[in-house]
């Protein structure tokens, strides 16, 4: 039983630029995912090759018959009627569509408009990333977030703590070792990879930077990596949102909106 007389301190945790970068970045990622699914719908399959190669198809979402949706992953087919392959057409009806209307921008099938949204918000996301990097570097908390070699041996103890195999988390600063690993991976590995695989899809970029497209295995392969990158980002976002809720939704949301975070008992301000 906790008592309310515990002294709780408010600390100013996030600079204005950090907060703006976070929310613009979050908005941009949401738009990029839904407009990206719109673009995927125009050719709802992914091949592990440079040119389209049905023999190397990793994923396809189609409608073999009216009213039936089918998803095929590595040659195994699943009936996914109502969600993938056959579902909401975004105008109130149903039809053959890889991703349904409630997941895409715009809701109805429109490749040209999906591309407009996607390319516009790719800039928003990129500027948000740069703004976040600058603001964190200036404020000095970039160092707190980055995974360091000394954190590696703390990764398992932290995971063990989450799995309730350990009573106490390993000692750490503002961010625990798993958080650092997640943020470092998402911001410095995944985000750049998603941008680069996206650029590799562009014939104009390919013409000035062949090695980029070759690096990812060709254009269709880059499309596959771009999609996988999106799935990993969705995975991160789900865990991130879960953690925000689990760690105190209102306190976390306040800190990312106003900048002020209420420290809990025993919680350190950080190094």
């Amino acid at each position, binding site marked *: 039983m906790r008592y309310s007389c515990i002294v709780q301190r408010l600390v100013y945790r996030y600079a204005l630029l950090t907060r703006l970068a976070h929310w613009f970045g979050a908005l941009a990622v949401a738009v990029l995912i839904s407009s990206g699914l719109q673009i995927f719908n125009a050719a709802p399959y992914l091949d592990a090759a440079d040119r389209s190669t049905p023999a190397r198809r990793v994923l396809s979402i189609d409608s073999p018959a009216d009213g039936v949706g089918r998803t095929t992953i590595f040659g195994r087919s699943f009936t996914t009627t109502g969600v993938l392959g056959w579902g909401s057409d975004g105008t109130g009806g149903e039809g053959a569509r890889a991703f349904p209307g409630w997941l895409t921008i715009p809701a109805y099938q429109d490749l040209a408009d999906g591309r*407009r949204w996607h390319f516009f918000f790719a800039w928003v996301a990129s500027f948000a990333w740069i703004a976040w990097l600058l603001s964190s570097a200036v404020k000095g908390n970039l160092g707190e977030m980055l995974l360091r070699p000394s954190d590696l041996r703390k990764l398992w103890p932290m995971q063990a703590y989450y799995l309730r195999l350990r009573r106490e988390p390993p000692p750490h600063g503002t961010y625990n070792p798993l958080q650092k690993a997640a943020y470092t991976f998402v911001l410095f590995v995944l985000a750049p990879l998603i941008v680069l695989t996206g650029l590799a899809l562009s014939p*104009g970029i390919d013409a000035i930077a062949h090695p980029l497209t070759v690096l990812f295995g060709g254009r269709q392969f880059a499309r596959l990596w771009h999609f996988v990158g999106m799935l990993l980002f969705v995975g991160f976002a789900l865990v991130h949102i879960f953690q925000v809720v689990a760690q105190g939704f209102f306190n976390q949301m306040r800190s990312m909106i106003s900048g002020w975070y209420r420290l809990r008992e025993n919680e350190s301000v950080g190094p």
Partner: protein
Amino acid sequence: MKRRLFIASSIAAALAGCAPIGTALNDNPGFHHFLGLEGSLDAALMGNLPGLAREYSLADISKHFPVDSLPTPMTSTYRSLLEHDFRNYTLSVVGAVERPLRLSLAQLQRMPQQRQITRHDCVEGWSAIGAWTGVPLRRILQLARPRREARYAIFRCMDSDDQGMPYYESLDMAQAYQPQTLLALQLNGEPIRPDHGAPVRLRVPTQLGYKSAKWVREIEVLGSFTHLYGGKGGYWEDQGYEWYAGI
């Protein structure tokens, strides 16, 4: 419990709001135009970069080259051309040129040919590799000698949609003179098939497939394209696709 319900419902509302809000904004002409400004930025940044599309080897050629365009023309003019193996076909080069041209298929075939094995990237997402043989567009333009006011080459085609809207495309002069921009006569060593754009199709390997117009009948050199059809410089451009199709 109420607190959890509130949290869960606010997250669900945020997610469910995405598509309807995005769709409403998409249908707002002002916002739609604002989003489209990004395409102009891309054209300014990348429209005339010096790069060359990657060239492949014979082994890389796609076994199946998809047909994904307006339907093959069914007009009596086109059927008649086809029946006579395009012996009566002429490619006109008109507009802001010193010397307008009318070139028969035989004349085009006698000009020095370039072969390129390049990848065709469709805006929908698929790609196919083919060996294209034909006359570099810049050779034709050098013969026609564009005048000073020339800024764009407009490609008028023989196909049209079910509303009767004809297909057309445009390139600026730098893109038209790009060494790989080709008036293709052959695909994989055979005369181009009717459904691939016989007898002459444009190939622009540094941009998306909709730039590579099929069934080209006339090249008009102009200072501007805003007075043509929808004013955006191409059939698909008039329907919202970017004029610079390198992305």
